[in-house]
């Protein structure tokens, strides 16, 4: 069986976790992969915890259920760490990527003894520096690409410039900022465990 990578996103409604999962699906699709990108719809409210998923594979994916044993977890909002079991089912061979500035001791205390790799990134500072606003999904997208290695940095950067040019055809001024956020994020995501 070919390599199947499964990713689970945790965010809050309005932060763009669903969009980020769809962007990741798009980028992987553009490198020739078979992909799934889907949110788990619950009550749709700004600020409510939401979950989204990705499957990325070299072969067609037929399974149609949520992901219970992900290879990777992305946490877009660290206030979820104390109310959602973000490491549930997460493979120890995998990793969790968290948007946070909290220290390693705190993270250890909320990750239920997870023994796999833990990465952090300060998506807020990166986003505000590059875009002047807080859009955590672009930095988190870059971080999970880097950590999971589902595609090379170069393929990812090339694909993102193309999709931003398309997406922001009427707002070309934001393309540079988004690309900068991605470049910085690829460098700044760091392993703490």
């Amino acid at each position, binding site marked *: *069986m070919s390599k199947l990578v499964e990713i689970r996103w945790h965010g809050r409604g309005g932060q763009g976790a669903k969009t980020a999962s769809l962007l990741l699906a798009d980028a992987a*699709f553009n490198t020739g992969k*078979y*992909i799934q*990108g889907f949110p788990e719809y619950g009550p749709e409210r700004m600020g409510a915890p939401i979950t989204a998923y990705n499957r990325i594979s070299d072969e067609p994916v*037929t399974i*149609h*259920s*949520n992901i219970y044993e992900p290879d990777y977890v992305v946490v877009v909002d660290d206030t979820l760490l104390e109310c959602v079991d973000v490491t549930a089912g997460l493979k120890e061979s995998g990793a969790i990527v968290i948007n946070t500035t909290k220290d390693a001791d705190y993270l250890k205390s909320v990750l239920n003894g997870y023994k796999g790799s833990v990465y952090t990134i300060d998506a807020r500072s990166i986003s505000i520096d590059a875009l002047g606003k807080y859009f955590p999904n672009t930095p988190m997208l870059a971080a999970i690409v880097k950590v999971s290695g589902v595609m090379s940095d170069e393929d990812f950067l090339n694909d993102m410039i193309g999709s931003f040019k398309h997406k922001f055809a009427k707002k070309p001024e934001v393309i540079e900022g988004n690309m900068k956020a991605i470049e910085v994020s690829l460098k700044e995501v760091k392993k703490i465990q």
Partner: protein
Amino acid sequence: MGIRERLSGNEAVATAMKQINPDVVAAFPITPSTEIPQYFSTFVNNGAVDTEFVAVESEHSAMSACIGSEAAGARTMTATSANGLSLMWEMIYIASSLRLPIVMSLVNRAVSGPLNIHNDHSDAMGARDSGWIQLFSENNQEAYDNFVMANRIAEHEDVQLPLMVCQDGFITSHSIENIELIEDDKVKAFVGKYEPKHYLLNDKEPIAVGPLDLQAYLFEHKVQQAEAMKNAKKVILEVAEEFEKMTGRKYGFFEEYKLDDAEIAIVCMNSTAGTAKYTVDRLREQGIKAGLLKVRVFRPFPSEEIAEALKNLKAVAVLDKSDSLNAAGGALYEDVISGMYQKGLQVPTVNYVYGIGGRDTKSDDLEKVYNDLAVIAKEGKVTDPYRYLGVRGDK
């Protein structure tokens, strides 16, 4: 060659509608099918199609508008889900009895109550005796392909029946996946021009549509409807054969996955079949002879053909994503075992009602069904055929 794309199930259906460019679309938004008329209205606004888009005030009006326009001689489409279909109820029977080949995208969702927006098949199962052809789709690709084939089946002069293409709400309607689209010109040529024989706006042949039909004729008209549904079987296969020549993708009444040498098998519809394929592969690696029969055509029901395909199995589980609440078993189960009985088959067959109201169905759940089937195959009988899968408090 086809166009490699990635689309959600709703985007896939809206794309097929754009390529077909029907004369009229009348629809009212309801989750999870809302995106279909939403995307389509954008195509209308941008001039990508020259369809007359009728924004109505309810689903009853949507189906009424579809009936009026199809009767007038216009190729007509709509999309809905769950309670939207419920509100169309009176009119869906009118559509089929007037022999109007309206094409609907039904994005399956639980019919309230209590209120639930997630997937099960209670909407489609409620309409199973309404005289509509019902095609089911495992994923975005099949929802698209079924939609491209729909008009050819529905409008065929031996059929002339409305048709609904079903797919699972959210699970496939809102999931982005790979898809191979067909080029616009090929879809256009395949679907062809709509040339109804009889229609209201034909000034050379004045006709009445839908007059009073009492004891003297209604029975005969119902028999004609039933005959048309039987004829649809042949047409569905002919259209599928032509579709395969164009795309290389093969469709029949159902898909058999590793069923040839299987000893135990699941029968199900829509997205669960994809998860079942994954489960079958896993079990095959352990040497377990598991298989799958995925029903694509539920109305007309390929009763004999399904029984024939299942005849060599030692145990079968039929999965219903809707409970008939009849103290006997789900709709698909009862249809499958009726076909077996007619053929004198004694394959032990069990029913699982599952996935109600969007309860997620995991590969592990299906593995449990195959494990149960292994026991049934060994014992050669079923004592409690009407069961639940994935419900809390389950034994």
